[in-house]
């Protein structure tokens, strides 16, 4: 999994700061932020397919973490809990740029066009994996990141996303095939 080498360092430093932050200590919370920001940002940016969006979401994640921290009971490692919370925040986040979106004829066309542009393959140079992931269609991208990058199992993904685990497997496979295609150009 990504950032395995950080895991040990992180695990040791966390519990004191978690307790302090849960009791209201903002400096301790800032330390937790610094310790986990990149990890959270990676999840957010990769799942959303955009660095800008990822930064917004990262802030949302930490605000939510602050809110829910007193409830963390240490049943899992703090980082596990935090990552799960990050995934939930991303899955619940705004899907469209505009304020209102509905499937009227017009907006369908706009949506498609926007998606297409986002997915336009780079003909000029071979894409690397990270770039290719960001070009995946939304559902496939989220599942790919959750499964192959972040290591969640299909059952967990299914529960988090409100789909079946068969659906998760199918989307994952589709994502990998699309990535293979993109990487071969």
């Amino acid at each position, binding site marked *: 999994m990504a950032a395995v080498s950080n895991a040990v360092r992180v695990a040791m430093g966390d519990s004191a700061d978690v307790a302090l932050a849960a009791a209201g200590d903002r400096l301790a919370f800032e330390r937790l932020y610094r310790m986990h920001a990149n990890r959270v940002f990676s999840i957010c940016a990769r799942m959303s397919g955009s660095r800008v969006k990822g930064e917004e979401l990262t802030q949302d994640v930490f605000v939510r973490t602050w*809110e829910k921290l007193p*409830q963390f009971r240490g049943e899992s490692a703090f980082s596990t809990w935090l990552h799960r919370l990050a995934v939930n925040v991303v899955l*619940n986040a705004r899907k469209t740029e505009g*304020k209102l979106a*509905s499937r009227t004829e017009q907006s369908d066309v706009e949506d498609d066009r926007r998606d297409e542009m986002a997915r336009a393959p780079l003909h000029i140079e071979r894409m690397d994996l990270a770039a290719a992931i960001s070009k995946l*269609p*939304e559902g496939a991208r*989220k599942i790919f990141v959750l499964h192959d990058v972040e290591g969640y199992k299909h059952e967990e993904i299914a529960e988090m996303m409100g*789909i*079946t685990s068969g659906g998760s497997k199918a989307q994952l496979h589709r994502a990998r095939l699309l990535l293979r295609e993109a990487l071969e150009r």
Partner: protein
Amino acid sequence: MKNEMKLTGVIVAVVMAAAPALARAQDERSFTQLDTTVRLDRGGAVDLSLISGKINVVGWDQPNVRISASIESGLLRFSGNSSRVTLSVDDSDEGGRRRHHGNVGEARYDVSVPRGARLILEAVSGDVTARGSQGEIEASSVSGDVEVSDGARSVSVESVSGEAHAAQVNGNLRAETVSGDLRAENVSGNVQASTVSGDIRLVGIQSRDVRTETVSGSVSYAGTIEPSGRYGFESHSGTIRLNIPRNAGANFSVETFSGSIDTDFPVTLLPGQKRREGHMDFTIGDGRARVTAQTFSGEIIISNGSTTRREDE
């Protein structure tokens, strides 16, 4: 066998009834234990409370309440007659003064109750579980989790920081937490769900009246929309996600101040209607039910009926 126990208000270290009870001191700690069976009339009440530990109630087909309880330190207080059984932790010492709860240890109650019994279950830091009672339930904890299933007529689950779960409720449900997450599954009566920051998940609801409120938690609803039902979802910054059956008939009034609204349903504006920032009014099917969703900054996402919405594109 008729069992007419009338022990009331007695502080019990040893209890007797149809089955022997034991009070034992074990090594350095003194446990107090209770093992007893009391016959309970149909619809009688079972009132269990403790400070920390676990309350575990299971419904069975016998007309008796069977209790198997123990506490690490402190005493259990028990009373029982054919219409009400009460078990709590004794929190006064010999002088009658209120005991410091720090001196009262973990307790564990395993209780079987007749179907239809009315349950009143309270814990402070303990967890509460009830299954199969098929009667009214009032279950609460402060920091423990509350999980009930198979209740009837009226069920209420509450916690402050623990989670509250209710499943298979054949009646009305009221669920309330502050920061714990709420989950309700397969409820057939009215649903009232409220948190401050806990997330609310409602699944398999078949109700004519659903009301959810949260401040920063997220809300997700997957259930039927009954004709002339009313469904109100409210949050400040949490996301509201509604999964509406495709063939539902409802009028939607959806509003947000700074969030966004994203719906699968086509919104055809009637002549004279304008599309307002942050506001959508639309009707699907026969428009008989009424669905309202309001947030300050939370997203509102309305999808139509298939759980494969995300299996998109």
